[in-house]
């Protein structure tokens, strides 16, 4: 029994990882080409340094900021904000989504209001949050949480509405009710879509982070962007953009792994 299980799961995993190396290599081709073209155009003087700094200058800017501990600080504070905001927003989205998806009464009471709030463009919250919560951490984390809330809320309510009624009935027939019915039948049934929702929410959290930091911060990658903008430091702007791309892609890949695992485990 155990033996067959292991051998069955081992074979596909091996072929998958060997293929995923090819996938990673294939995905790296374009960035390498872009950097090469960038290097080439700056070396040939196609653009002036004021228009486009060379990769080397961006690297030097990175080393400079790193040596002064600023780069690590900016990355750390931005990541921290994203994580805290994401966790709060996703948890609230999960709770509200479960409530609206499971109970007809809360659906009627809450769904229209939440739907209207979702229609508000993200930047519209900024002045309000700045006035209410000042330029502290709370205002930024709140904005990120708002960004993370809606993708989770939407996917959870949608998935819960589509849970197989026959399975729920079978669960009820075997004496499951309330929280136990939710954890035994409904929650496992929606786990794959919940994780897809989390993935969207994390991407949204990075978007909202930059919005929050651009408009009022003294640290963070968004601050690095706006600060370098006023100082005309193109190299640092490019550095901040590259850091955001790398961090966003990295966190997305992590959740992507979780998503793959969940799709196999829970369906």
């Amino acid at each position: 029994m155990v033996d067959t299980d292991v051998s069955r799961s081992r074979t596909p995993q091996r072929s998958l990882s060997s293929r995923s190396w090819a996938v990673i290599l294939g995905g790296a081709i374009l960035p390498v080409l872009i950097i090469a073209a960038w290097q080439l155009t700056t070396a040939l003087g196609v653009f002036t340094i004021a228009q486009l700094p060379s990769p080397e200058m961006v690297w030097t800017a990175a080393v400079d900021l790193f040596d002064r501990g600023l780069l690590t600080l900016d990355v750390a504070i931005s990541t921290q904000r994203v994580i805290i905001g994401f966790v709060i927003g996703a948890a609230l989205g999960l709770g509200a989504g479960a409530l609206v998806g499971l109970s007809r009464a809360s659906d009627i009471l809450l769904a229209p209001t939440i739907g209207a709030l979702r229609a508000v463009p993200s930047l519209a919250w900024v002045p309000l949050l700045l006035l209410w919560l000042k330029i502290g951490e709370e205002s930024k984390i709140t904005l990120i949480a708002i960004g993370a809330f809606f993708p989770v809320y939407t996917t959870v309510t949608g998935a819960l509405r589509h849970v197989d009624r026959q399975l729920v009935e079978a669960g009820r027939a075997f004496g499951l009710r309330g929280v136990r019915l939710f954890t035994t039948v409904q929650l496992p049934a929606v786990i794959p879509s919940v994780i897809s929702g989390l993935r969207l929410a994390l991407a949204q959290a990075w978007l909202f982070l930059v919005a929050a930091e651009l408009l009022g911060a003294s640290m963070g990658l968004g601050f690095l962007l706006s600060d370098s903008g006023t100082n005309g430091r193109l190299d640092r702007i490019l550095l901040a953009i590259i850091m955001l791309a790398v961090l966003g892609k990295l966190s997305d890949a992590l959740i992507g792994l979780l998503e793959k695992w969940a799709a196999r485990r829970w369906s």
Partner: protein
Amino acid sequence: MSHTADVSTDLTGTDATGTGPTGADPTGAGVRDRDELRAGATTAGPSAPAGNTAYTVEFAGVGRTFAAEPVLRDVTLTVAPGEVLAILGTSGCGKSTLLRIAAGLDAPSTGTVRIDGSAVDGIDARCAVGFQEPRLLPWRTVSANVALGLPRGTRRDAGAARVAQLLELVGLSAFAGHRPREISGGMAQRASLARALARNPGVLLLDEPFGALDALTRLKMQDLLLDVHAAAPTTVLLVTHDVDEALQLADRVILLGREDGRAGATIRQEVVVPGRRPRDRGSAELAELRGRLLAGLGIERHGQPRGLPSTSTVPHFPY
């Protein structure tokens, strides 16, 4: 549902001499010998939840109307404790609805159902349901699905032992760790039956439990049900569309159907099946009853009862 896959695995299981293909069923977990089964069921003592009592089920003037369309009306019937009642009827006549009402999954529009003298109100813990579809949780293994049927408060080790025993009983031991999508439709239906049996219910409600099984496994599972019933008596309400199955398994058969000009199905015929179980599948007496029930289902009887020529194809019982 893949019938072909089912046949191959089931044949391995039912091949008592072991000449079938090996590997598919390494622990020899096919449907076992009758004697072995009965022994297994009676030695269940320590692991099975104590106190299996069969309950009376009384339907009093039960009717059910869906959106002004009567489906059932005036169903009045008393099922004795430990009795096996088969419910026959054409497709869509309300058999599943009647069963769901007994389980408390649906409420009657008129009348009441009483189990052991107390009215059914909401889902009833004294019942266990084997649904028409397997309805297994796709993310759980077969054994974890069967464990879902265990009564609340079953001790962990006792529960595990009981699940293993039930899987053995329905011939799924080798598939305990499989997911529902990795087993055939017929195997899923057997797992669903095991889940209902795990409840050790006072009333067992089975909705076409053998509908998706191939003919051979079907006969084996019918015998298995009788063995389970003999070992731990419970009241069984069995919905089926198979007249032979009803006559083989039941003490009494009711036929649901519409009476001329009236909407809503009710009890059209009630037949007490003669003889003790297990019955000879080819007896002339049963053939006569079969003809009557088939006629009630609107099937013409062609000259001689169809049962007689079929005796040559039904294996002599017990085989």
